[in-house]
């Protein structure tokens, strides 16, 4: 299975990258953009018997390493690994 993890700065954390990208978009004429937040995307391939088990493991990975709970939020989805024939 593959976990697609998205880590974003918490709403209360100042995100200068996001602000700068928003300004860049405005310069290009994308006036409709009100806010941009820049985070990161992490793909984790893992072996798990069930999706439930995979969810529990990935949740623990995010808590312990992939995200810093002081400054970041995370969310993820579990999808089948298309590269493996099962």
């Amino acid at each position, binding site marked *: 299975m593959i976990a697609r993890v998205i880590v974003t700065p918490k709403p*209360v*954390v100042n995100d200068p990258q996001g602000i700068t990208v928003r300004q860049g978009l405005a310069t290009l004429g994308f006036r409709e953009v009100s806010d941009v937040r820049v985070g990161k995307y992490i793909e984790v391939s893992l072996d798990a018997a069930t999706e439930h088990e995979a969810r529990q493991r990935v949740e623990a990975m995010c808590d312990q*390493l992939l995200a810093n709970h002081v400054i970041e939020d995370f969310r993820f989805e579990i999808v089948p690994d298309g590269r493996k024939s099962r």
Partner: protein
Amino acid sequence: MKFGVVVFPGTWSDRDCGWVIDQVLGAELQYLWHKDADLKGCDCVILPGGFAYGDYLRTGAIARFAPVMEKIGEFADRGGLVWGICNGFQVLCEAGLLPGALIRNASLEFRCQWTNLMVERTDLPFTSQCAEREVIHVPISHGEGSYFADPATLSRLEQRGQVVFRYCDPDGRVTTASNPNGSLHNIAGIVNARGNVLGMMPHPERCAEAELGGTDGLKLFRSVTAKVVKVLAS
């Protein structure tokens, strides 16, 4: 008096710290490799600046898994002196030895410049040689030094007097203009509740000799030496 200087792959300020300890201060120096599971009898352990493990994922995120970090955690629990400078501060936050986190500078720029710091605690082993509310002149050199903590943590730090250094102007006024990175409350350095673990973004090891533009950093190294010698003598 023996200082330990931790070297992770990617650390870059270890030799600068070592020079000050060994050549300027004349104290005993021991480099501690990240794979060492022994602090070799050091009285104070310094986590220097740099980019430990390339700062992959987040600054300091991977360094906390190094074998030496487990020993440093135990050492801190016993009241040992641990001093994180720049990347070392980031590592201490990631390791949970200090609260909060260091995020990207508000300017998005890597800032390498002199700053003025208000010394708010002089009763600590790291600052006893500073005068009360002294303004010291110490350079910074970082891209991710903006201190962040949630409001509850921040107010707890303030109430307990855990903010040790604050960016200020030359007259000691804590202003927005004197804040080089967007740190909340102009925080440049904090200490744990017990007072034995210090984290700071500015580099005292880079201003310990007059040839380098100032010697205020040496006061911090001398404070540690004075403290440890006093403890050993008692």
